[in-house]
């Protein structure tokens, strides 16, 4: 699982300026080479993905990103509808998962009785460890029929006046994908937030309680402001995971290449479309277009990660000033 630096960075280099040994030279050389290798690896990933998508890049250019098409017969490809599906599912999953995850984290850090704190923490981490293909299988064969028969029609009849909640007929649809993604990113956001909440200095919390606040007022006034940056970064990391999830979404979202406001209709995402079409691509241009999808995902994920790091660093600096 991706994680953030929540602990202060401990520098461990009290000894420098010593004579170099041959063994030192070898170990430092090997270790440095490995570290350099990781830098090269990331560069290589970018280069190879760009290389693979070059045909689609030169054929369609940037408009590919918002162009809505997937027509192998006329060799017309575009990422528009898939990008739409990616954004809709990941944003919705984030919006649903965040408050629940914060509730879980508060429970585990502030409320849970001693005896059940450990086991529940372990269970939440286990939820994060369940493979996406198993969640997808469960989503397709257990969750989707329940949603189709009970939940979707109920939501449609209650909120049908909003175009989002249109007529429901398929089990494999955008809403099912949103639920599955929510389940997948929930434990990620929850476990990072829990660590952050545990890191709030007790004297601040005790100070608030001593002033006569209730526990919730203490959380709102002390815990939330203190951990705001870190929780935002945790949300961003969860969002990155939701964008890139291919298998689970591919299994439950159906297969539809168009844009529809109705979340009870099948849809698709960039990653899921890759997973559904990996075999038997009709042409080199189609393959290259799929790799262009991967390039969009790569750029997205790098931006998301850098943003999270930036927020963590900035909030760490701000805390250093106020403390």
């Amino acid at each position, binding site marked *: 699982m991706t994680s953030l630096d929540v602990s202060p960075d401990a520098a461990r280099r009290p000894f420098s300026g010593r004579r170099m040994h041959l*063994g030192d030279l070898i170990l430092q050389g090997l270790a440095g080479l*490995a570290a350099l290798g990781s830098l090269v*690896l990331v560069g290589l990933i970018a280069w190879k993905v760009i290389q693979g998508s070059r045909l689609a890049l030169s054929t369609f250019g940037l408009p590919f990103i918002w162009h809505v098409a997937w027509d192998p017969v006329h060799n017309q490809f575009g990422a528009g509808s898939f990008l739409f599906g990616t954004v809709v599912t990941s944003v919705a999953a984030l919006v649903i998962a965040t408050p629940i995850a914060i509730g879980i984290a508060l429970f585990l850090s502030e409320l849970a009785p001693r005896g059940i704190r450990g086991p529940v923490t372990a269970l939440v981490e286990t939820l994060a460890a369940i493979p996406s*293909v198993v969640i997808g299988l469960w989503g397709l064969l257990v969750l989707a029929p329940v949603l189709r028969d009970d939940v979707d029609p109920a939501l449609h009849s209650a909120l049908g006046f909003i175009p989002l909640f249109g007529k429901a007929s398929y089990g494999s649809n955008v809403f099912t994908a949103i639920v599955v993604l929510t389940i997948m990113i929930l434990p990620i956001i929850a476990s990072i937030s829990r660590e952050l909440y545990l890191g709030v200095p007790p004297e601040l919390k005790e100070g608030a309680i001593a002033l006569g606040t209730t526990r*919730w007022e203490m959380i709102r006034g002390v815990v939330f402001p203190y951990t705001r940056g870190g929780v935002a970064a945790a949300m961003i990391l969860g969002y990155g995971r939701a964008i890139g999830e291919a298998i689970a979404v591919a299994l439950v979202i159906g297969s539809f290449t168009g844009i529809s406001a109705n979340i009870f209709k099948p849809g698709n995402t960039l990653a899921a479309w890759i997973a559904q079409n990996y075999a038997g691509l009709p042409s080199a241009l189609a393959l290259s277009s799929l790799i262009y999808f991967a390039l969009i995902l790569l750029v997205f994920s790098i931006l998301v990660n850098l943003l999270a790091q930036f927020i963590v660093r900035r909030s760490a600096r701000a805390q250093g000033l106020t403390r």
Partner: protein
Amino acid sequence: MSVLTGRDDHLRRRRFVNRVMELLAWLAAALAVAILGIVIFSVAKKGLSQLNLDLFTKPLQLYGTGPQGLANAFVGSLIIVGIATAMALPVGILIAIYVNEYAHGAVRNSVRLTLDVLAGVPAIVIGFFVFELIVVGHQQSGYAAGFALAVLMLPLVSRSTMEVLALVPDSLREAALGVGAPRWRTTLGVVLPQTIGGVLTGAVLAVARVAGETAPLLFTSSLVASGMQYNPAKPLLTVPLAIYELTDSDNPSDYARAWAGALVLILFILFVSLTARWLATRSRRKIQRAGR
């Protein structure tokens, strides 16, 4: 009087809000536990009936007749995850040693940032990367799939190793250097042995994580011949990919086999995570003792 009752109401409302919020947090935790329970229960219920000897002895064959199992998928998963671990573990540990024991300032930060970025790259993108790097012009193989999983493991292994290396007290390093041991012997002979438990924990958790990955295998090891295959130079079937392929079928008995595969996968991951937890508590105790 009226002022006092007003205050009473105010206090009552604050307490009420507090109570509601606490209840919501309890419910959120209960929801997460319930979801996990339902998923594991469904998998167990549908998979248990399929857990028989055939599952482990007979291979999965497309268009095959007669009793079928997932033997080739289990073998393939073991081989590919083994290859990935053999590649990622030493390199990951070396990177952690470099960052923690040798690197300074900007270099150190940029390696850490790189690992974070690598950890965030979607698995399916890694699959395309290995496809373009190794598979194009050659063929799909267990080695290619192992390399793809190794790329996923690398940031996990090196990050967890860095965390335990940072726990080793400086007094140990100072003691070793103080008696004249060179830096490399201090690192390999004194510091690293203290972290074995933690490093193993990280490695084991990384194995659990990549054993269930499907996306990087789609382009690297998916064109599978029927029957058993032990040669990693050829494409190997894996458990996650078998589950993914079986859900595409119209045949109910294929679904049953998918559930059985999912059950074995989950049991494996639960077992491995518990082992990791046990290793982690043990190693933490050991490091604490060493610091005293």
